[in-house]
């Protein structure tokens, strides 16, 4: 029992982290039909930026803000200068983001070196909390809380605000939205920046327990992809359910079959694909 509770909690906290990545990936896809391979790089860059900021100032909060701001800026540049020129040319966009992935991987190696680095947990959260029979790290609980809060905020903005309505309109039919006088260009840039910032934020939150190391970008990217394949591309609800599922399954896999762990994750993905090619909540 203890084992199952601990592993499920571990999995859910990892899922919360995945949600930060997958929600951005999904939003960007829903609006722009861009599959952003560089999303894993945003995650790693966020972690590295945070490590540097904490080293310089000691403030975790400042690290979060800086990482999100830096990644948003990178997102704006990538979307405006490169991706916007290839509207609806999927292969060109994928290749571009792939190229950026390599560039970012090498630049981070150059700037932060090849040794794995870890962000220290903020002192306020550096303890364990009893949950039933297990003691659980407070930081991981905080990550879950953050994930849930971001999900709630995204949902509120999407469903209850004017901006959200505009975004939904653009997702449904971009040409019609343009015809109604909605300026779609800045909206796309803004959403791309938001997605990048969320991924960077994910990197910061993950750095204390997963660490930052060369290759973390391509480790985490297939997991985020698995989330959107399971949940359905372009769906916030799908990203939420998918992240929880992938997080828990990945953790159970690691605990039960350590040698096959990464691979076991792709079994449920295959099953869902076979039944519903567009994912649980994806549109056909």
């Amino acid at each position, binding site marked *: 029992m203890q084992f199952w509770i601990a592993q499920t909690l571990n999995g859910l906290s990892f899922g919360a982290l995945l949600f930060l990545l997958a929600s951005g990936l999904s939003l960007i896809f829903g609006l722009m039909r861009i*599959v952003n391979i560089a999303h894993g790089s945003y995650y790693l860059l966020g972690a590295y930026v945070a490590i540097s900021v904490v080293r310089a100032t000691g403030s975790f909060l400042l690290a979060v803000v800086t990482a999100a701001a830096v990644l948003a800026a990178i997102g704006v540049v990538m979307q405006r200068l490169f991706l916007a020129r290839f509207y609806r040319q999927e292969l060109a966009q994928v*290749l571009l983001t*792939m*190229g*950026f992935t390599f560039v970012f991987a090498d630049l981070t190696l150059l700037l932060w070196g090849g040794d794995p680095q870890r962000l220290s947990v903020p002192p306020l959260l550096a303890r364990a909390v009893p949950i039933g029979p297990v003691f659980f790290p407070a930081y991981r609980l905080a990550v879950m809380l953050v994930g849930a809060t971001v999900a709630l905020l995204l949902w509120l903005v999407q469903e209850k605000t004017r901006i959200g309505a505009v975004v939904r309109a653009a997702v449904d039919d971009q040409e019609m939205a343009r015809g109604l006088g909605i300026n779609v260009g800045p909206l796309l840039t803004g959403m791309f920046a938001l997605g990048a910032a969320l991924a960077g934020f994910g990197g910061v939150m993950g750095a204390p327990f997963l660490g930052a190391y060369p290759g973390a970008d391509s480790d985490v990217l297939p997991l985020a992809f698995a989330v*959107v394949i399971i949940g359905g591309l372009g769906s916030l609800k799908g990203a939420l359910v998918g992240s929880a599922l992938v997080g828990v399954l990945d953790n159970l896999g690691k605990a039960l079959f350590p040698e096959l762990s*990464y691979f076991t994750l792709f079994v449920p993905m*295959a099953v869902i694909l*076979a039944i519903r090619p567009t994912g649980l909540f994806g549109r056909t």
Partner: protein
Amino acid sequence: MAARLRIAGLGLGLAALLALPRLLPVYFTHLLILTLIYGLSGMGLDILLGYTGLTSFGHAAYFGMAAYTVGVLTTRFHLAMPPAMLAGIVAAALLAAAFGLLATRTTRVYFIIITLALGMGLWGLAYRWVSVTGGDNGLPGIPPLDLGFAWPRRDVTGLYRFVLAVFGGVAFLLYRFVHSPFGLTLRGIRESESRMRMLGFYTWLHTYVAFIVAGTVAGVAGVLYAAYNGFVSPPDLHITASAEQVLVVILGGAGTLFGPLLGAGLVVFLRNLVSAYTHRWMLILGTIFILTVLYAPQGVLGGIRAVLARRRPPLPPPAAVPAGEAVHQAAEATREGT
């Protein structure tokens, strides 16, 4: 006339490839072997990417599956190289048959991310299943290929000729494949799947077979790689390797049979040239990706064909559509009016 010219060109190219090791230092023979291997794998990928309009971002999985099969069978079960290599090709074909069932249910973007995710799943297996694959250390000590009569592996020129012979054989088969009615159907699917379906073609089966052919060709390249390199490790089937395969195809010219060979040559020689001066290969590779998309979306051969096509308008050569554009067109054609 055009066909005769093409055959003459091919013959000339083959003669040049045979003669090259005699003219160049041994170092270049090594690079030529790698060029042939990656070029062959790229030609397989081109069947999907260039001819069918489906971009697989997990092509290195089949290459790696074949190489790992050779590695496991020879180092752990002490099987001889020839049967191990055959088993490697079969393993790659079976993997493609399994992954293809999932991937060909989708198209376009979904196809890209599913092939990528499945490929990385296999990478995870190679990386973590230490008791079989050796994990991060890979599998060293794959024995040299000894066919009993001619080709000891120590002799690089001998191995080069063997690789060239296999390459020539597979290239011939692929030539027949893409120019067969089946290959033409694939091109039709690339341009508009819905129209091909309406014409009565069983488009899914065509796509699925193309997927298996692509994986099998990668498998042939993979077993050659295992025989040449004597060592397999997880980077051989990492997403980076898959991406390099896509680059090889795009750079050479998607939808041209020998374009990938040219692309592989560019990548292999450039990487070795660059490595002599700097460790920043990834940075340069990424930049090549970005520059190719921005300035040379048709690749080298595609660009040449476009120029030729402009010169003689009455004889349209086989379409070398930039892959991105082809995907785009196919997307437009099949898009339901939502």
